[in-house]
């Protein structure tokens, strides 16, 4: 048995961890699974208990037939589900291609990206990962391997399905051509929440990638003040001449790693507060056309491996929700509540979502999404987040499963309207409930 947690390091549970190298090996393991069932795991970057299965089997999919292929004519990439977006970028970027969607870390697998239907800074124009997938190979409970396309129901039960329909073995998805490996970025500061929302609403569509970092510690008239970073892939002629010699160079700096013995609670109220003040303070009021690498633009946290250890042994909770456009009042109330409660969040990120995918349990919908990290030791946290769940649900929004570690089954059922439809498909494809996870038990999926 191996004790597993998600990235937030809360609620550890033991499971038998196996590392299949092929679909056949995975199928054999699934056949032997006990009544506690089995679930796939990628790089464990979901924050809560999605890739855990207490007392059962967990399939570490990172060694699944490592392979990838790219067709430069169509831009389609076929990659094994265990491949990380980091490794994929290292292959694709120098060839002039980029993944269609990247989350805030490159250290996720293709399988994890599909299973959570992940979104990136380009959601308002490009939707989520599932929108770019052309086909999936899925290993189901009966041991069969099925190739699925967007016309199949099971495809959309699997995209965003959190590993509960089977093991994704391979995916084919459309990539994006790029001229350079740099980003051309505009940075600006806003005074308060109203201005943040106004600026994003008015001008986000000019950029492919946008995000706002909110200073949650600012109160009163400055509540919701933000730093907006918005950009596009740089064109060749955006680059200074010395960079033009090797425009597709992709060599993210090797990572530092927080050692396992890092003192617990290094990220506490004081240090997070100081960090936030400095971050806002050092951002320019407005700067245009900054040339930045892919890694610092998309994945600033990847610079330090295992940064999650810095929250100490009790771990931390990530809270990400979306509310539809028109529910700005709810968003404002939430921000007020959080800053009023003195919640300290290392990075609080606001983003505008565009159209969602037909994924039945996919998270994104047109609206505003806010994500924050909170140390699990913060007092009164459970009650406050339950209160926020209520507001979010009342506004027609929902909480992101890949980040969740504490929502209730009732809120889940009330906020994912297609849950029943998804359950019916799952019952059909997996009548004995072979695929199971801690998240599924907690939320009665």
């Amino acid at each position, binding site marked *: 048995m191996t*004790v597993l947690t998600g990235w937030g390091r809360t609620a550890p549970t033991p499971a038998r961890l196996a590392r299949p190298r092929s679909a056949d090996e995975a199928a054999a393991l699934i056949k032997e699974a006990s009544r506690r069932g089995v679930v796939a795991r990628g790089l464990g970057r979901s924050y809560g208990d999605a890739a855990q299965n207490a007392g*059962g089997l967990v399939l570490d999919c990172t060694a699944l037939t490592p392979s990838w292929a790219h067709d430069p004519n169509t831009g389609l990439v076929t990659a094994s589900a265990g491949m990380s977006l980091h490794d994929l970028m290292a292959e694709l970027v120098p060839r002039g291609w980029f993944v269609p969607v990247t989350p805030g870390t490159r250290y996720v697998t293709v399988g994890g990206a599909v299973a959570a239907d992940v979104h990136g800074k380009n959601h308002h124009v490009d939707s989520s990962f599932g929108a770019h997938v052309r086909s999936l190979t899925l290993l189901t409970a009966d041991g069969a391997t099925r190739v699925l396309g967007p016309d199949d129901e099971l495809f959309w039960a699997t995209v965003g399905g959190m590993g509960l329909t089977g093991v994704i073995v391979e995916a084919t998805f459309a990539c994006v051509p790029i001229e350079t490996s740099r980003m051309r970025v505009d940075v600006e500061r806003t005074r308060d929440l109203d201005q943040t929302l106004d600026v994003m609403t008015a001008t986000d569509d000019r950029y492919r990638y946008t995000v706002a970092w909110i200073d949650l510690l600012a109160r009163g008239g400055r509540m919701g003040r933000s730093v907006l970073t918005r950009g596009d892939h740089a064109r060749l002629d955006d680059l200074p001449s010395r960079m033009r010699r090797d425009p597709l160079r992709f060599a993210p700096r090797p990572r530092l790693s927080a050692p396992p013995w890092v003192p617990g609670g290094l990220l506490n109220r004081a240090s997070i507060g100081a960090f936030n003040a400095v971050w806002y303070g050092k951002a320019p009021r407005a700067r245009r056309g900054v040339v930045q690498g892919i890694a610092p633009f998309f994945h600033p946290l990847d610079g330090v491996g295992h940064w999650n250890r810095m929250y100490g042994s009790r771990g931390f909770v990530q809270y990400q929700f979306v509310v539809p456009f028109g529910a700005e009042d709810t968003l404002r109330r939430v921000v007020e509540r959080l800053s009023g409660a003195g919640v300290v969040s290392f990075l609080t990120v606001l983003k505008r979502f565009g159209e969602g995918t037909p994924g039945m349990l996919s998270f994104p919908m047109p609206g505003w999404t806010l994500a924050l990290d909170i140390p699990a030791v913060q007092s009164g946290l459970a009650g406050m987040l339950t209160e926020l769940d209520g507001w979010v649900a009342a506004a027609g929004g929902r909480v992101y499963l890949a980040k969740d*570690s504490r929502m209730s*089954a009732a809120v889940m059922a009330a906020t994912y309207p297609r849950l029943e439809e998804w359950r019916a498909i799952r019952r059909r494809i997996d009548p004995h409930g072979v695929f199971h996870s801690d998240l599924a038990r907690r939320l009665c999926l």
Partner: protein
Amino acid sequence: MRNALGSVDTVLLLGGRSEIGLAIVERLVRDGASRVMLAARGGAAPTEELRKLGAEVHVVDFDAARPETHAALIEHAAATLGDLDVVIPAFGVLGRQAVYDDDPVAAARDVAVNFGGHVSAGLAAARRLREQGHGTLVVLSSVAGVRVRKANFVYGSAKAGLDGFAQGLADSLHGTHSPRSSGARVVVVRPGFVIGRMTEGMTPAPMSVTVDAVADAVIDALRSGRQMVWVPGRLRFVFAVMRILPRALWRRLPR
């Protein structure tokens, strides 16, 4: 499943009318537990309060003195509730020592509940928790078992047995974070004199506590992961001394 902030979904209370047990269950429900089973003699237990708080409450018949039924009860609970997050065997009888002195059969019968019943129910629950890889067994021991007194040595010795059993079981299930852990754990609770139904008519001992205080301490331990709870906490130090008191002196203590 226990969530990231320590709330649970399901609770099984064995001895479904126990005052202490119900006070713990009520707190767990207020904190988010949504499915509860109360197992009590004759299948009757107070459900109204818990239902009002929004929980789905099941009541089943349960007799601690019939160990042969315990494994089936645990299976039934898991089939009804899903994974058992918290199991609380809270049954017990506090007979008078004078009565036991005259009625050895009654004494043995109560010991069979206070100790034997906990062994069969505890082992059956532990088997389930081990299989599911998580869950907590809350064992209501007592300071009466920490050092047995002549004034209630039948009850006390059963509690001593229970306390030893619970610690052994805890070690066999092992702490949560070890790589070889079963994921399941045991919390041993050692209350002093609790003013409540069980002790009705008795003069409270020094440092007596309320049912609510015991329940609060248990909730605290479930959150923090503590494995041993004294209520009130300072009894731990009192008993550190009591334990090493010379026998001749101990024997002469009034109660």
